[in-house]
C-alpha cells in the first residue's frame, strides 16, 4: 500500500498538481511516526504508513508554515477525513484546493486507541485517491458505551472524578493546539479583556477551560482523540467529547464530519428542538 501512496505522491509532485504531500515518516523513538512535508518527488521514499500514524494531519492546513508551501495532498485516515469535512463546512479550507490520499485503516496504536473500535469510517468517506482494501463500515456500534457507563455514576461521583482530573490540568493548551478544529487565531483562553477563562491553573480556572474547550467542539468534534493523546497529564478528554457527541446526536440528529453541506448544529435550530429542561 505504501508503495502506491509513494507512487501517487511522486506523480502529484512531479506534475505540479500539488506542491506538498503531508504524510508520515518514521520517528526517532520506537513506535512513533512524525508528520513530514514532502515537497520534492525525490523524497517520497520517506513516506510511511503503519499502525503508529496517529497524528491528525488535517491540523496542518491552517498553519501558515505549511499553507505557504502551496497546494497540499494529505494522507488521511477516515477519522482525519472527518476533520477535513468539518474544516470545509466551516470554510477554513476549500475542498477543491486539497487532494486527499485516503487510507483505509483498521485502527492505530497497540493496543488500539479507544476511538478505533467504535470507528465507522475505516474507509474514508471522502478522498481523491484511496489506498488499501476497502473496509465495510461496522454496523450497530455504540459510540458512547464509555459515556453511558460513566453516566451510571452518581452526580457526586462524577463531580469528584472530574474535579480530580481537571485539578491536574497544567493549562499547557496542548489539547487545543493538537486539535485540527481549534483553528482560532486568538483562542477564547487568550482573551483577557475581559478575562474569559482564568489563566491560572488552579482547579476553578481549569474547570472553566476544560468545559469551554469541550463545549467549543460540541457538534464539531470528530473524535480523532488527538487531545487525549497529547494531554501530558492524562485527562480523559475524549470522554467529554463523546458525551457532547451523544448529546448532539440524540437532541439534533447530527453527527459531525459526515456531510459538509449540513449546517453545524449550533448554528441551526428546529422549532421542535427538545426543551424538556426548560421551565
Amino acid at each position, binding site marked *: 500500500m505504501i508503495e502506491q501512496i509513494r507512487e501517487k505522491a511522486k506523480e502529484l509532485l512531479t506534475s505540479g498538481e500539488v506542491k506538498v504531500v503531508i504524510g508520515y515518516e518514521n520517528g526517532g523513538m520506537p513506535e512513533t511516526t512524525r508528520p513530514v512535508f514532502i515537497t520534492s518527488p525525490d523524497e517520497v521514499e520517506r513516506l510511511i504508513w503503519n499502525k503508529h500514524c496517529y497524528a491528525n494531519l488535517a491540523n496542518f492546513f491552517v498553519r501558515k508554515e505549511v499553507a505557504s508551501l502551496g497546494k497540499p495532498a494529505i494522507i488521511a485516515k477516515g477519522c482525519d477525513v472527518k476533520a477535513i469535512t468539518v474544516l470545509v463546512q466551516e470554510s477554513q479550507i476549500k475542498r477543491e484546493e486539497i487532494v486527499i490520499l485516503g487510507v483505509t485503516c483498521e485502527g492505530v496504536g497497540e493496543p488500539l486507541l479507544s476511538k478505533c473500535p467504535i470507528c465507522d469510517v475505516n474507509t474514508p468517506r471522502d478522498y481523491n485517491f484511496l489506498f488499501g482494501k476497502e473496509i465495510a463500515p461496522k454496523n450497530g456500534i455504540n459510540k458512547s458505551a464509555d459515556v453511558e457507563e460513566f453516566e451510571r455514576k452518581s452526580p457526586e461521583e462524577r463531580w469528584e472524578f472530574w474535579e480530580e482530573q481537571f485539578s491536574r490540568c497544567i493549562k499547557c493548551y496542548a489539547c487545543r493546539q493538537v486539535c485540527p478544529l481549534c483553528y482560532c487565531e486568538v483562542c477564547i483562553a487568550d482573551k483577557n479583556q475581559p478575562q474569559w477563562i482564568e489563566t491560572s491553573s488552579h482547579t476553578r480556572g481549569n474547570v472553566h477551560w476544560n468545559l469551554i474547550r469541550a463545549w467549543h467542539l460540541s457538534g464539531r468534534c470528530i473524535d480523532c482523540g488527538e487531545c487525549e493523546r497529547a494531554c501530558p497529564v492524562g485527562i480523559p478528554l475524549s470522554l467529554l467529547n463523546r458525551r457532547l457527541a451523544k448529546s448532539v446526536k440524540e437532541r439534533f440528529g447530527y453527527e459531525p464530519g459526515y456531510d459538509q453541506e449540513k449546517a453545524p448544529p*449550533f448554528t441551526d435550530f428546529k422549532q421542535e428542538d427538545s426543551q424538556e429542561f426548560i421551565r
Partner: protein
Amino acid sequence: MSRIGVFICHCGENIARTVDCARLAEESGKLPGVMVSVDYKYMCSDPGQNMIKRAIAEHKLDGVVVAACSPHMHEPTFRAAVVQSGMNPYLCEMANIREHCSWVHTDRELATEKAIDLVRVMVEKVKRNQELFPIRVPITKRALVIGGGIAGIQAALDIAAGGHEVILVERQPSVGGNMARLSETFPTLDCSQCILTPRMVEVARDPRITLYTYAEVEEVEGFVGNFKVKIRQKAKSVNADICNGCGDCWNKCPMKKIPSEFDAGLGYRTAIYVPFPQAVPNTPVIDREHCLKFLKDKCGVCAKVCTRGAIDYEMQDEIIEAEVGAIVVATGYDLYGIGKEQPNERWKGYGEYNYDTYKDVINGIQFERLLSASGPTQGEVRRPSDGKVPKSVAFIACVGSRDPEKGIEYCSKICCMYVAKHAMLYKHKVHDGQPYIFYMDIRAGGKNYEEFVRRAVEEDGVLYIRGRVSKIYKDGDQLVVVGADTLSDSQVQIRADLVVLATAMVPHKNAYEFAQKIGIACGSEGFYSEAHPKLRPVETMTAGIYLAGACQAPKDIPDAVAQASAAASKVQLLFSSDELEREPIVAKVNEVTCVHCRNCIRVCPYSAIDDKEIRDRHGNLIRMVAEVNEGMCMGCGTCVAACPSKSVQLAGFNDEQVFAEILALGHE
C-alpha cells in the same frame, strides 16, 4: 478613572416605602468611581432631571446611573436629560429598583441590599459603556400589502393616495377576500359586493399600485425601511396582457364539476376559471391540479377556443424581487372547521353536529353564498341536499367560539351580528319560514348593532333560544336540533330543514409559518401580535411591519377598514422622512481575530452578517472575515454568543460590560 453619578429616586413612596433610599445613596457613594450619589423624591420630575443635569456639569461625570423604575418606563426620559448636559445618552443606565425590587419585596433590609447590588451592577456596566451614535438608514418609500381582502385593499388605496407606490399581493386569482363572498352586510343590509367592487376596481386601476394576484410572499429579508421581498407569482397559464376576459375558455372547459372554493363547496367551477363574475383582474387561471392538459396531456380546448392566443401551458412560476420600506399584513381569517379533520390537537371539532355527514348542516359562509345573487342558487335559499326551500332554519351561534373544551376561548365578535342578519335575510326571502337562533349571549356592541338585533326579533320574528345545542340528528328529511333552553331551564328540540353553524373566526391556516417567514410574532391562538394591545394596536414588534384586519383578531368590516387606514397612516408616517434613525445597539466584527468560521453568518436571524474579503493593496485575497451590516442588525447578540473567538461584540452589551456586571455581584 470613571466619574459616575448615582441618582436614586424615591418614586414618592413607591420605592422609599421598601428601600432605604438614604442608605442606598450612602452605600452607592462608597462604590469606586462614584463621584456623587443622591436620592430624591421624584427623579423623573423637572427638578429631579435638573439635579442630574447640574451634577453632570459640576462633577464632570462620564456616566450616570438612575436607580428608579424600569428602564422600559423612563430610560428615554433620563437619556434625553443627560443629552441636555452634553452627555452621550448611552452613558446613562437605569437600575430597576421599583418593578424589580420595591414593589415585589417586603423585607426592607433585604430589599435595600438588593437595591445596592443592582446599583453596583449598573455602575460597573456604565463605567464600560461607550458613546454610541444613532445609525441612519435610507427608507425605500414603497409599501408591500399582503392580502387583497377589504383590509388590504383599504390599506393599499390609502397608501397610494398618500403618493407612495404599493405592491399588493393576493393568493387567490382575484382580490376581494371574504367580503366578496358575503351577500349583505350588517347592520345596514347593503350589498357587500356593491360596496366592495368599486374598491377592487380602483386597486387595479391605480397606477401607483402594482397588483399581483395568484401570488404569494415567499421571503422577507431586511428591516424597517429596507425590506427585500420575494414574491412567487404562480403560473396562471393565461397571459394576462393578452386575455380580454371574454369567457370562451371557461365556458368550453370540460371540467365542470370542480367544487368552487368561492362558493364554499356549494357550487362548481371549471378548471380554467375566474372565481366569481366581478373578479379583479378578470383574467382566468388554470387550476393545474384539475386540468386535463396537465393531468393527462389531453384536451387543450381552452387554447383552441382562445381567439387571442392567451393560453400558455408552458408558463412557469416566477419569483419577483422587490424592495419595500414597510409591510402591511392583511392576511385575513379562516373559519373553524367543525368536522373531524382539525388542523391542530387543541381544536376538537363538533362531531355531534354531523357537519361532515349531513349536507344540510352548513356554515355561515355557505349560507352567505346561498343568499348571494352570484351564488350557486342565484340568491334563492335552497338547501344543498335536495334543493328544497327550507321552511325552518336553525342558526347556532358560538360554534367553536367561547368554548375552551373545543379549543377556543375567545369570542369571534361578529357572529352575533351575522346570525341575526342571516335570520333576517332568510325571513325576507322565505316569508313563511321560521328562523331559530341558539345563542349564549347577544353581543351587539357597535353603532346601530343593538337596534339591528332588536329589528330581527321584533320585525322579522326571529326566535332566539338561549342555550347550547348538544346534538343534531336526522329524522326523515328533517334535522332535529337538540339543545337546552337555559331561560326556561328546559330541553328543546327543533325540527329544522337547514342548520347554519356560526363557526369561529380562526387565524389563517398557515398563519404561524407565515409569521415565522416574515418575522412577526403570533399569539397562542395564531392571530398576529400587535406591539401593544392598547397603545400600538396596528404595529407589530418588528419595526416597519403593520397589521390590518382579521389576521390580528376577529373583526367586522368597519373595524378591519379602520385598522387598515390606521396601518396606512403609520406607513405614511414612516415614509414622511427620508432617513430612519436606528438604535446603535448593533454588532461589530473584530477583523483581526475573526477566522471566518461563519457561525455568526449562519445564526443571524436578520441575515445582517456577510462574508468580507480582505485584500492587500495589489488586490490579492489575504483572508476572509465576517462583516455586520449595521443597517440590518437588530442587536439581538446571537452572533456574539456564537463566535468561538469572541470576535463579534454587541455595542451596549459587550462582553466586558456583561462580565463587569457579573463580577459586581461577586463581592461579599
